[in-house]
């Protein structure tokens, strides 16, 4: 049994952070809150998402006895959710608060926003990919940057090229895009950032993915970029006023020559 009440803006923020990487996934509901780990269909990006129960105004979860045998973890239940659809429904709006109620038997999620009730069919978990293993990674460099600054640069970069270089050169963090004709570079000194580990390294990433991710982080004040040399990028940020955590992982582009 799962029944909860949550602020509409908070829920939308969370769903947007998920749809930035995947359209659908297995959401794990447990007593301490919600969790999701999913990889995008192209195996290039991954999301780990966590929302604590105190992000909700109301949160009731009880593991159904009949479902227990089917699930691996006795303290949690897994439901297949089409997050794109859910985001569309939340977009209709009309209320400050959203009520959620899960009917596991019928495989439905009831959402109610004020007088608007919407029943969402759950996805068959068998049709969804299994939860990915998170690769073990060590990042030599960490940069904490204001989200707005990062997003503004990405928006400009999209007009210029297909991939973006993120790097650190001594005390400077930089983002660089080269198109056929133009070039864009943002360089920020340590004092212009919230935090920077000095170093010399860079990696190249697909701008499509970085741009999608930048939409998913729009509500966070700051983001933490974890970087390496020709290495995946990990972006960490908070949602729901610190009651939720999101972590994106993005595979680097390997240059051909």
């Amino acid at each position, binding site marked *: 049994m799962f029944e909860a009440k949550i602020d509409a803006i908070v829920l939308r923020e969370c769903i947007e952070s998920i749809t930035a990487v995947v*359209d659908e996934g297995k959401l794990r509901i447990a007593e301490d809150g919600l969790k999701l780990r999913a990889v995008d*269909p192209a*195996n290039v990006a991954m999301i780990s998402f966590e929302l604590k129960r105190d992000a909700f105004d109301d949160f009731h979860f009880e593991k159904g006895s009949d479902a227990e045998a089917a699930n691996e973890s006795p303290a949690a239940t897994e439901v297949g959710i089409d997050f794109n659809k859910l985001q569309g429904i939340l977009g209709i709006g009309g209320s400050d608060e959203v009520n959620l109620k899960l009917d596991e038997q019928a495989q439905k999620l009831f959402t109610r926003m004020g007088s608007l009730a919407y029943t969402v069919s759950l996805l068959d978990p068998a*049709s969804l*990919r299994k939860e*990915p293993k998170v*690769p073990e990674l060590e990042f030599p460099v960490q940069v904490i940057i204001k989200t707005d600054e990062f997003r503004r640069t990405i928006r400009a970069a999209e007009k210029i090229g297909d991939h973006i270089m993120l790097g650190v050169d001594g005390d400077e963090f930089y983002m660089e895009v080269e198109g056929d004709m133009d070039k864009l570079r943002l360089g920020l000194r340590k004092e212009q950032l919230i935090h920077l580990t000095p170093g010399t390294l860079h990696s190249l990433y697909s701008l499509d993915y970085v741009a999608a991710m930048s939409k998913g982080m729009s509500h966070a004040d700051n983001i933490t970029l974890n970087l390496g040399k020709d290495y995946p990028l990990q972006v960490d940020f908070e949602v729901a006023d610190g009651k939720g955590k999101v972590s994106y*992982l993005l595979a680097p582009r*390997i240059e051909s020559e």
Partner: protein
Amino acid sequence: MLLKELTEVYEKVRARSSKLEKITLVSELLRKTPSETLPLVCYMLRGKIFPDYSAQELRLGWSSIWDAIRAVTHVSEEDLRIAYNKFGDLGSAVELIFEQNPKISVSLVTEPLTVEECYNALLKIATLRGKESLRRKKTILMGLLNTSSPDEAKFIVKTITGEMRYGFKQGLLEEAIAEAFSVDVAVLRKAYMVRSDIGEVARIAKEQPETLKELSIVLGRPLRPMLAETADTLEEGFKRFDKALFEYKYDGARLSIHKNDDVVSIFTREAEEVSTSLPEIVEDIQKIPHSFIVDCEIIPFEHSPKAFQELIKRLRRKHRVEEFARKIPVKLYVFDLIYLDGTALIDTPLLKRRELLATAIQQPTERIEIAKCILTKSSAEARIMFQEALDLGFEGLMIKNPRSLYTPGKRGIEWLKLKPEAETLDLVVIAVEYGHGKRANLLSDYTFATRDRDGNLAPIAKAFGGLKDAEIEEMTEYFKGIAREQRGRTFIVEQKVVVELKFDEIQKSSLYAVGYALRFPRIKRIRWDLSVDEIDSIETVEKIYGRQKRSS
């Protein structure tokens, strides 16, 4: 099970020429496949991810596959094109590209691809609908390719393009399943005939082999139609069967109708359900008592048979169904009964089935008739019927062994089809070219291919006559939609449009690699009812050539 285990066996099978070795290799693989994965392995070996009773298809446009390959590898448009032109199929091209070029990005998923994951991903590509679905399909394919070895990538792409269907033959798969689980191949074949699902049958062979014999027809699940060989003369029938059963050969669409109490389902020969587009037929069938499966042919009919093209406007129609039902009346000719009130009749001789059919459908309606047939030893009588068929506007005659059993999916010598002298060939369009003069903006010149001895498509004719202007305009749009690439004024197109071609004669020629060419070819009609799997092969071309020589 890892996909690698499957593709490794597939590669070995391709490299062997001995049928027995091929069967042994596959049977070893099947034996170690876990039960729940066994159906998937069978489907994938055949290159068709759905069972035969399903009309669903794995459809992903050629350009999407092309884009996905380029999105995961460092390969230029030009290099991919060169690789493609070298092999003529995208699967072999991707194998070469993957061997020579690095991937653009590492995959975050490091575990090797399993058969189950690959199958689920392909299933998703086949079933995703709605907005964004094209982007999502492409991304799923990118994910598969991103974690694939060159062999695996080839296997996946060939499965999507349909090239895999010419890989491991259905008959060999049946034998491999029988060998793997020590069951009688005849029993297995029979089980597959009634179930139209090789995956299900394989699983039963593994888990409960003793029940294989008891499997029977499932009402509502389409069977593959029994097919006929081409006969050269009327006498062939007598020669083979002594007394033969003659029926008109109707120039329409083959349908099978399942009636379960009040529930009527009408299927095309590709197992696509078209019940909602034929409401008046459903209504008439509902009035007939009994539960049954009948085999029949539907034709557009108003006082006399109308052009086959009219039928296309009715089958699969979703909107204005009633209006078109009035505009284009149809007639259904029932010629076989496969199941009646709980009893499967596939082991009942044709003559008996015909008798039962007459008792089941006692009151034919204006729209539903039992196909006329005569049982005779006399070629004079048969000749009269043949002439009658042509006078009435039908295509020719069917010549059937009155003792023939119903064998779903088999093309045998128990049933023969006879058409009048003017021969036609069903060929697939592989390229289209802009015409000249007033057709300079229309793709009006088509290049056709037959299937050569190795099962590959080979060009044999070029034609530009036969279609009406409106049809050419329609087809121009259609061909642009399935174009793979443009070379000057020519488009190479997906190999899916089958055309019935008339011609004056077949000539030996060095113009085409197959060694034959058609004299004065022109298009008779587009055969939307046929797929590229059903085109005439070089053997048929040679047969007609031989007949021509004899008769001249």
